[in-house]
């Protein structure tokens, strides 16, 4: 039994137009992990996923999926993966049940097992009532769920989701979060790429950030967030300010008379801030993060790299 669900060593991809999409990538994803693979547009995430799923040919390097090398144990490696691609890629004229059963068949599941697995997935993804419909008749959220159902039908050990919640409303997104957490809880390793960093922060245990084809961070979510040495908050005040508050050792700016933006460094706590405000009879009605913590870290890391 291997320790890693995914092991990547020295992975390179240079496209025909000489664009280096991946530059000597090393990455490990632990068994049972919920792994966020983040990066700005064009960073190389989709290329990496394409190589893992054999939709893109690599230029160099080694990839092992559940211990199976994709070069030497191609078939075994592919059997371990379920892919939810970024774009809808099903036959729009086929009924849902047939799409899922066909996918099971491609993985070698006999007719009965394929039917059972397809029905199970459709129930699980709440698509059973639509089983005889074609994808054209589905909403965007349902289509996303269909892609997850299709990826799960052969019971893969590693589920790869390439921006699975792109373009879906918040309600659907939250229901998908629940579903993905449940799937991960059942023991499946999940690799998730997303531009919603709140999603990655809420769901994932580990994270790698890719930028310009290189891994610039590869750690646990906790470790990464600990490295965040400053955090900005928006404070909504009960009464308008009469003058500029004295907030020594804090960076702040007045957004308007009832709103302040304050940046905390590691050395200062919210308690210190509130004590100072309290001393000046400034009452805080509510408070929120200026942006998601991971988002701040992400912007810092990727902009550092760009600079």
């Amino acid at each position: 039994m291997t320790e890693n669900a995914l092991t990547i060593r020295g992975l390179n991809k240079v496209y025909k137009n000489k664009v280096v999409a991946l530059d000597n990538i090393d990455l490990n994803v632990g068994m049972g992990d919920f792994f966020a693979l983040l990066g700005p547009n064009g960073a190389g995430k989709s290329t990496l996923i394409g190589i893992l799923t054999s939709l893109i040919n690599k230029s160099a390097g080694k990839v092992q999926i559940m211990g199976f090398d994709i070069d030497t144990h191609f078939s075994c490696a592919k059997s371990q993966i379920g892919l939810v691609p970024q774009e809808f890629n099903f036959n729009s004229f086929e009924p849902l049940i047939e799409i899922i059963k066909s996918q099971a068949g491609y993985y070698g599941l006999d007719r009965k097992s394929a039917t059972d697995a397809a029905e199970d997935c459709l129930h699980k993804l709440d698509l059973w009532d639509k089983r005889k419909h074609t994808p054209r008749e589905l909403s965007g959220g349902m289509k996303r769920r269909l892609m997850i159902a299709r990826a799960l039908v052969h019971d893969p050990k590693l589920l790869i989701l390439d921006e699975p919640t792109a373009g879906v409303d918040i309600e659907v997104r939250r229901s998908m979060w629940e579903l993905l957490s449940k799937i991960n809880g059942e023991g499946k390793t999940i690799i998730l790429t997303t531009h919603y960093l709140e999603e990655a922060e809420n769901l994932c245990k580990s994270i790698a950030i890719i930028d310009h084809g290189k891994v610039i961070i590869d750690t646990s979510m906790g470790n990464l967030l600990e490295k965040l040495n400053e955090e900005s908050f928006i404070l909504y005040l009960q009464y308008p300010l009469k003058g500029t508050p004295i907030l020594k050792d804090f960076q702040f700016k007045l957004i308007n008379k009832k709103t302040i933006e304050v940046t905390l460094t590691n050395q200062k706590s919210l308690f210190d801030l509130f004590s100072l405000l309290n001393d000046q009879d400034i009452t805080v009605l509510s408070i929120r993060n200026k942006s998601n913590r991971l988002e701040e870290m992400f912007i810092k890391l990727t902009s550092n790299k760009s600079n």
Partner: protein
Amino acid sequence: MTLIEQSIALRTLVIKEIRRFLRIWVQTILPPAITMTLYFIIMGKFIGSQIRAIDGYSYIEFIAPGLIMMSIITNSYANSVSSFYSSKFQRHIEEMLVSPMPNYIIIIGFMLGGIARGLIVGTAVTIVAMFFTKLQIHNLSLVIFTAIITSALFSAAGIINGVFANSFDDISIIPTFILTPLTYLGGVFFSVAMLPSFWQSISLANPILYMVNSFRLGILGITDVNAVVAIIIMTGFLISLFCVCLYLLNKGIGIRN
């Protein structure tokens, strides 16, 4: 993937392919039957009645095997090229590419879909032909062999076209500018023995001539070419085209980045 799993994957793909063209039978099965009916009426009855017998057969009897073969060729090609290209266009070919299914199973699956359509349309056209002429089978094994190998060959050719096609226009260029002229010049409507010797030699370079004549030999018992040579040429073409398909898919040309 074990052999049993591969056979399941193949069966899945073939069923999907057959279901695809049967679902749109009004576009896939009916038009060739209607077109061939028109050929039989116009070429066979109206014009054919004015043409003398060829090798002891009336003109309509002579062209019937060629028309059946022509429908097999065009439909097996059309099936695999349109199915392969649309699966590329809609990107659901990725369903197969991410699966552990080997490339040769994907090729055989698409080919069997093309063969199925070619044979179903061929059967439909044969039934139509029986309304106009009496078909006596001279050699059933040769008829079946030629029909299967020709449809397989053109299914493979359709896949190659599908691999390189980047638009729906690209899938009609080969049938329009290559396949149709070769079919028309392949002895469907005439015996090459009727041509001047120079054109006879040129015609012998047309592979469709061997398919049409092999099929005609199976039905009528007459041919312009040596049957063994025809079988060798057809088999050689089939193996070559299959190898080209396999090479293209293994390399990922047109389907993998």
